[in-house]
């Protein structure tokens, strides 16, 4: 009897440990997916803002066709990179290209004081910066979740569970911080 207990008890403990570890991995993956959905929602919102922004700028700065086309093209590429089949790095580069395009567009507006004082443009710029702030926060939350998951996936003993059950590595989402580039300049 004691012999049996000496075998069964450790096995039971290991089993409980495996179940707990597995459940925690599942919870972490669910959390990663939820934060990723947040990022996608905010990116979508940014994509939706771009046509309005381009249209407003076009009304004042018709000669800046090259910049406007560049932004439109970058937006199209960013939208094409949204589906989950596209690797996360490719999506990040597409978003970086859009950020760069928007930075050029906002730099162009500096030469048009009437545009800068246009209420619609100011409102769109404010919405853009707020959306980009939320993208930055969502991205950091996502990366924190991924870092925590990866730490568990690689550390002992949870790496055994991850290896046996096959929990795959998740990549971080690294993009340039658009809010820092697009927030209105504060005069000193």
């Amino acid at each position: 009897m004691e012999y049996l207990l000496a075998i069964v008890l450790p096995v039971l403990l290991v089993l409980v440990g495996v179940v707990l570890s597995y459940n925690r991995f599942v919870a972490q993956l669910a959390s990663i997916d939820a934060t990723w959905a947040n990022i996608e929602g905010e990116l979508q919102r940014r994509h939706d803002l771009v046509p309005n922004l381009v249209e407003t700028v076009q009304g004042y700065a018709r000669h800046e066709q090259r910049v406007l086309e560049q932004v439109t093209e970058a937006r199209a590429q960013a939208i094409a990179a949204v589906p989950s089949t596209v690797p996360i790095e490719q999506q990040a580069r597409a978003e970086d290209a859009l950020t760069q395009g928007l930075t050029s567009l906002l730099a162009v507006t500096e030469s048009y004081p009437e545009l800068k004082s246009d209420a619609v443009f100011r409102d769109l710029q404010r919405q853009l910066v707020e959306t980009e702030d939320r993208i930055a926060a969502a991205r950091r939350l996502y990366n924190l979740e991924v870092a925590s998951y990866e730490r568990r996936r690689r550390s002992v003993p949870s790496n055994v569970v991850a290896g046996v059950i096959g929990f795959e590595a998740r990549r971080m989402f690294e993009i340039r911080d658009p809010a820092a580039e697009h927030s209105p300049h504060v005069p000193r």
Partner: protein
Amino acid sequence: MAPPVSGAVDAGSVALLDRATHLLLAVTGGDDGSWLPGLMVGLFGVAMAIAWTLQRHQRRELRDALNRFVERHDGWHLQAWPCGVHANQLVSRFEATPRGDRRYGVESAVGGPAEVEISGTTVRCQVACFVWFHERRRTQRSRGRHARRTYDRRTELVAMCQLPVHTHRAVSILPESALGRVGLTRSGQQLESESFNRRFRVEGRDRALVVTLLDAGLQELLAAEYGARGIELSDDLLVLSGEPTHRDRSLAGVAQTYPAILQDLTRLVRNIPPPFWRALGFQRPAPDPAADPATPPPPRPAPPPPPRPEDR
């Protein structure tokens, strides 16, 4: 007005001591052998008088120091309600203002308007420094006897700022426990910086807001210079608690810490990242047209119409 000389004992206190000494001599002067209880009572009285005199002297010194600190800042004064908030509204709202088991309250409070930098803009806010006190019950049990209940008086140094925006949801950044520092019982939200996580326990209902608040720069600053301090946000109040590292030796008592804690508070607000303020809907105040000579002055209001004959 010349400030009172620090360390001087006032004439009233000296007279009181003198009277106590005379009383002692009168009591112990008897020659019937019953002088011992009188001596004891006399000595006790003298000790009480000395303690009372010292306490009174310390209180006066603190009051003078608080007045001198207040004089350094325009519009500042001694306050009963820091930033206009009653102690009953502060109690248990922050970790720095616990209820305790008996009495609690605010003391040595000073405050007034101060300029703080929010998202690159200078904003005038109400700021206050004060000591929060509360009493904790302590029960001592001796063998077979009644439990003896005493109360410990505890104090917490607090600087508070009334922000121009509402956070709506509470955020607290408090020192991590000893076990948490070694990674055994780490709770709260974990962020990118391990040195920050080791030092602070971050709680907040809105995780996105917490992440927006604690950007890399603020994490680094807090880990480096606000190690044992508590930072809490609730509605429009920002509270910084804990002892600062510097003291102003020209002041006395707790007032010594006020310049440093005030400086720490304004520095903290200045380093809060702009996205956090934007997330809370902070709007920069409209520029003052009077400040810009290029801007034409606003049209003057029309003069009032002449009174009608029937009004005369």
